[in-house]
């Protein structure tokens, strides 16, 4: 169980993390979602006492800095390539094991587990991003910790690798561990996460179940086709909170009213309908809606 309260970090006048409080529960994978620059990495660095800022993070009631052997309780990987390029993967882990009272046999075990045992004695400077991510995961699992904190662990993995990571994280969570994984891609979180913590511009946008996020931030729209489209559009615009956009194919896209209401309006006005389709936005669309105005870098179309 991780309990973060009032985390905050500013660089001069710029606020990177703004009063974030959340909890990450054991037994499930919690996704930490937000666009690039939303403050996810800074938040994780604050949680691990790497950055100095406001707030407090408790891991099962204790601060990170008070843990005797943090590696044996919290496995953290914040950067994919945080190793010396000429120190072998095995030696890198041996070094961390030596600082945590972990036996060397465990090093070979985790290297085997993440599938890079055959390159364990090679210099990691030639590692692909995917191999580096696997070494990172091996590092996180070294102390067999009850809590995992991983920053963008799927970045650089091929689709096969992402599914493997999903299975690994779900299995670890099923053993009762607390798993907190960040990503800027909702598709990854759709695969891996049970719960979400969504941030934009350092602020909390949503915390809860993945499908709850979709429901809260999705506006279902209805596509209508009718030979009397303009009459229907006029009738619908008279209703409160309904917006009507003509589509390129000559139909209407209606938001703010469901198919039942639209069908009734059409019947009352004697309008014939050729199509009435409800479209539910994907998780991807929900994400865009939720973080759209909180996105750090918004592309602006000119002309």
């Amino acid at each position, binding site marked *: 169980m991780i309990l973060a309260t009032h985390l905050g970090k500013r660089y001069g006048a710029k606020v990177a993390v703004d009063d974030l409080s959340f909890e990450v529960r054991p037994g499930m994978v919690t996704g930490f979602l937000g666009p690039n620059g939303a403050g996810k990495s800074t938040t994780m*660095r604050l949680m*691990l*006492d*790497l*950055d*100095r800022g406001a707030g407090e993070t408790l891991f099962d009631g204790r601060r*990170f*800095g008070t*843990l005797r*052997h*943090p*590696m044996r309780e*919290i496995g*953290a*990987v*914040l*950067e994919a*390539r*945080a*190793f*010396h*390029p*000429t*120190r*072998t993967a095995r*030696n*890198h882990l*041996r*070094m*961390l094991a*030596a*600082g*945590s*009272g972990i036996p060397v046999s465990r090093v070979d075990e985790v290297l085997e587990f993440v599938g890079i045992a055959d390159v364990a004695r090679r210099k990691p400077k030639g590692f692909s991003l995917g191999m580096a991510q696997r070494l990172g995961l091996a*590092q996180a699992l070294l102390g067999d910790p009850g809590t995992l904190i991983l920053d963008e662990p799927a970045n650089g993995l091929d689709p096969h690798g992402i599914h493997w990571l999903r299975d690994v994280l779900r299995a670890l969570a099923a053993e009762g561990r607390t798993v907190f994984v960040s990503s800027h891609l909702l598709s990854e979180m759709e695969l891996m996460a049970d719960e979400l913590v969504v941030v934009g511009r350092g602020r909390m946008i949503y915390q809860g179940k993945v499908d709850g996020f979709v429901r809260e931030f999705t506006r279902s729209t209805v596509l209508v086709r009718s030979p009397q489209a303009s009459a229907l559009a006029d009738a619908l615009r008279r209703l409160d909170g309904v917006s009507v956009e003509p589509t390129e194919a000559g139909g209407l896209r209606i938001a703010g009213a469901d198919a039942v209401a639209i069908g009734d309006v059409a019947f009352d006005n004697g309008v014939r309908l050729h199509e009435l389709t409800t479209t539910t936005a994907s998780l991807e669309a929900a994400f865009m809606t939720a973080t759209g105005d909180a996105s750090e870098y918004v592309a602006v179309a000119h002309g």
Partner: protein
Amino acid sequence: MGDALRFEWVRLRTLRSTYWLIGSALVLNVAIALLVASLAADPTVDVVAAAVTGGGANAPVPMAVVLLAVVGVFASGHEYRYGTIQPTLTTVPLRGLLFAAKVLVVGLTALVVTVVSVSLNVAATMPFWADTPSLTDVTVIGYVLLAVLWAVVGVALGQLLRGVPGALVVLLVTPMIVEQLVFRLSYVPALDWLHPAVRFLPFTAGLQLVSAAGEASGGLASEVGLFGRWGSATVFAVFVAAVLAAAVTLFRRRDA
């Protein structure tokens, strides 16, 4: 502390540059010892000191000492150069403790390497000289101390400047260019007010530790008013302590 020391010890041993730097220091010193011993049949105390301490106070800085300082710079600077500070601090989160472990491991390594190096140098002079140079000579002790202080200040500079290149520049440019320049300029009549400052140039003062006569820079100590061996050693030690204090204070305060 035990965990932090074990971490640092494995870190040092699993780095190839450690072996290159220490190996170079040992080989280079033996080469100097062989050269000096083979050329001087009837050595004065200066020559003996030069053979045993890898050039002694004649070189701007004894080469082996610089190489050990680089081992020190790598101990802290590599963490930032390669981003390993994150896994390091999530393994050993107490920063003061981690820094102390780095200083201790590097300092002890420098101590052992220098003692071994001096022994090898003495062995190299044996075929040429009738009298075996003493290992307990005050110059030898000063040399070992100088090497430890340089290695430690290397760790401190790597940490303070959070990287390798900046620390190396400070470590090489300060004694070899800046202090030399101040030292020479103090001879210009218009700049003779620099004289009192010369004795406080930290690296110049440190070099007094290996001076066979208790004074460095060509026997000009009395002329420019340098302190004697242990007075100068104190100046250098205070400088090293100040850099250490600044490094550990900022390390604890700043973002990693």
